[in-house]
């Protein structure tokens, strides 16, 4: 039995010019294998890159295109690639694909890998050439068994065609690519924890600097990019920088398309490939169909558990980093969540902080001890047994676990939704405070 990733993305009208990541998807949601992928122009960008472009030329096209990381932090990909030291031709260099996707409400890489495994592989071959990396690993979360099977099958097909291995298509380029499956723990998605995990160690993040570009996996120059980021590379090389910088909506500072979604009690939950700069309103109404009958929108979150809550009035924001930044939080992974009127914010935050507390790697004290403490306070408030100081304590934790106070971005991601929930829905937290003993009616 298999629950396929087929969804609304398979049903909307798509074209190669407007939907570079998803136009080849099949209506039935089955994986696009090599023959079909090649009949739809697949691997032509790889051939162009390997046969006609020098590594530096590929890298500068990706930089000029303004591609930004799709893994949540939005760091410019070309800049990240530029941090790699020049190749000496001897020292091994690695390209790692972050396919650990475990953040609550982040569900885009799974569908790309299950349905379009060759696009990621092609993107990795081109990116590895740009980085002069001869070995790549796709770090895939263990639960994604269908993605693992499809990626491995696609790799076999690509290897048989001579696209993976030694002297690819007679160009002298070598690239070996493996699927590495994990064994749980959300923190493996943090890029330096991912490197430790790949090395066969506990997945505690590493201190930076040195950055992975200089000292990465096995101490060698390493680049870590998200599945969706790497899947964008073939179309940039194939269609060119001008095309890529022209497809977003006016007003967007980010270029290209993004896998965006809406879930929760909306009529038509789904993921779609959409141009940066569309408004959250369009995503919510035109794609997700608005709320189901009987439910009203109370709050929403733009991009995964680690982003802040917003109000319905903020739906006018444009979906790109700066657009969501203007209303006070981060675009994150671009997969939005609708919170309906039946959901109590204290209970929802309790659920979320249970996740963050459980998934803390335990390395630094504020995160290891602060998150379980927040869970304890939220549970008390949820039962209506909170103390009147609990809300202030939660706000203090929001400060203690904020950006720059901990070893990695797990703790800041954990408190961003909490701080925003208290900001917009303080009443619901106050309602969880027990009446002081003296004031309790006899």
């Amino acid at each position, binding site marked *: *039995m*298999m*629950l396929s*990733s087929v*969804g*609304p993305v398979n049903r909307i009208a798509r074209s190669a010019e407007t939907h570079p990541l998803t136009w080849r998807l099949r209506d039935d949601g089955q994986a696009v294998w090599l023959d079909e992928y090649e009949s739809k122009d697949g691997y032509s960008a790889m051939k162009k890159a390997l046969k006609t472009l020098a590594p530096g030329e590929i890298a500068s096209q990706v930089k000029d295109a303004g591609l930004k990381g799709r893994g949540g932090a939005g760091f410019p990909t070309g800049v990240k690639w530029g941090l790699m030291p020049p190749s000496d031709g001897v020292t*091994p260099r690695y390209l790692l694909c972050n396919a650990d*996707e*475990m*953040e*609550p*409400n*982040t*569900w885009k*890489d*799974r*569908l790309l890998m299950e349905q379009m495994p060759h696009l990621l592989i092609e993107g990795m071959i081109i990116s590895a050439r740009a980085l002069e990396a001869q070995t790549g690993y796709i770090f895939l979360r*263990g*639960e*994604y*068994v*269908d993605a693992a099977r499809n990626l491995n099958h696609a790799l076999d097909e690509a290897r048989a065609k001579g696209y993976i291995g030694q002297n690819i298509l007679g160009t002298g380029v070598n690239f070996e690519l*493996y699927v*590495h*499956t*994990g*064994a*749980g*723990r*959300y923190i493996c998605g943090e890029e330096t924890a991912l490197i430790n*995990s*790949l*090395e*066969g*160690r*506990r*997945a505690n993040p590493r201190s930076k600097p040195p950055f992975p570009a200089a000292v990465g996996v*096995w101490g060698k120059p390493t680049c870590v990019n998200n599945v969706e980021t790497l899947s964008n590379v073939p179309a940039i090389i194939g269609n060119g920088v001008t095309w890529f910088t022209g497809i977003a909506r006016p007003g967007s500072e980010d270029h290209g398309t993004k896998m965006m*979604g809406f*879930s*929760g*009690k909306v009529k038509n*939950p*789904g*993921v779609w490939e959409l141009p940066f700069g569309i408004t959250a309103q369009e995503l919510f109404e035109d794609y997700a169909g608005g709320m189901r009958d009987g439910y009203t929108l109370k709050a929403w979150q733009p991009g995964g*558990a680690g982003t802040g809550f917003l109000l319905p009035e903020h739906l006018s924001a444009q979906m790109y980093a700066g657009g969501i930044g203007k209303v006070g939080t981060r675009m994150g992974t671009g*997969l939005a*969540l609708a*919170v*309906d009127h039946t*959901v109590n914010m204290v209970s*929802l935050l309790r*659920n*979320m902080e*249970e*996740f963050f507390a*459980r*998934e803390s790697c335990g390395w630094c004290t504020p995160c290891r001890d602060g998150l379980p403490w927040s869970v304890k306070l939220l549970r008390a408030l949820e039962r209506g047994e909170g103390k009147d100081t609990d809300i202030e304590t939660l706000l203090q934790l929001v400060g203690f676990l904020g950006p720059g106070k901990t070893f990695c971005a797990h703790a800041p991601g954990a408190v961003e939704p909490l701080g925003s929930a208290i900001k917009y829905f303080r009443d619901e937290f106050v309602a969880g405070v027990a009446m002081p003993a003296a004031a309790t009616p006899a």
Partner: protein
Amino acid sequence: MQTDNQALIATSRFTLSPQERTDMENAKSHYPDPRAASIDALKIVQATHGYVPDGAIPAIAEVLGIPAADVEGVATFYSQIFRVPVGRHVVRLCDSMTCYINGHEDVLAAITAKLGIGYGETTADGLFTLLPVCCLGNCDKGSTMMVDDDTHGGLTAEIIPGLLEQYS
């Protein structure tokens, strides 16, 4: 099958099968450093035994050429490596926020009512172990869970008993 000329690594309580060893050697070949095959090796043992018995730790350490304490450190860090026996079927229920909004706590209650176990527990007949898992990437498909390698969506309290009965 064990034959005389096949080198086996034995500890007082545990012997890796030739197949397990071959699979581990194959995993090792993917990496410049054998330590990187730690998780693969643990999963190989888990695939045959259902969990990772104590004796497997030094046996894996020997194959990888690293201290047993390091293997144990990895085995205890990752949530999907089981260091105690689990049921024949492992139920992994997504408890992340979208499934929470879509009613996962009712589903959990229905599983507990049907099987008489909570998170981290195994049924007396050894058939099921229940574990929580982070977002399974099916947030559009209602509350979701995996039973072994099968993913189920659109879960409600009503369909849980029938669904679990398909596994025996």
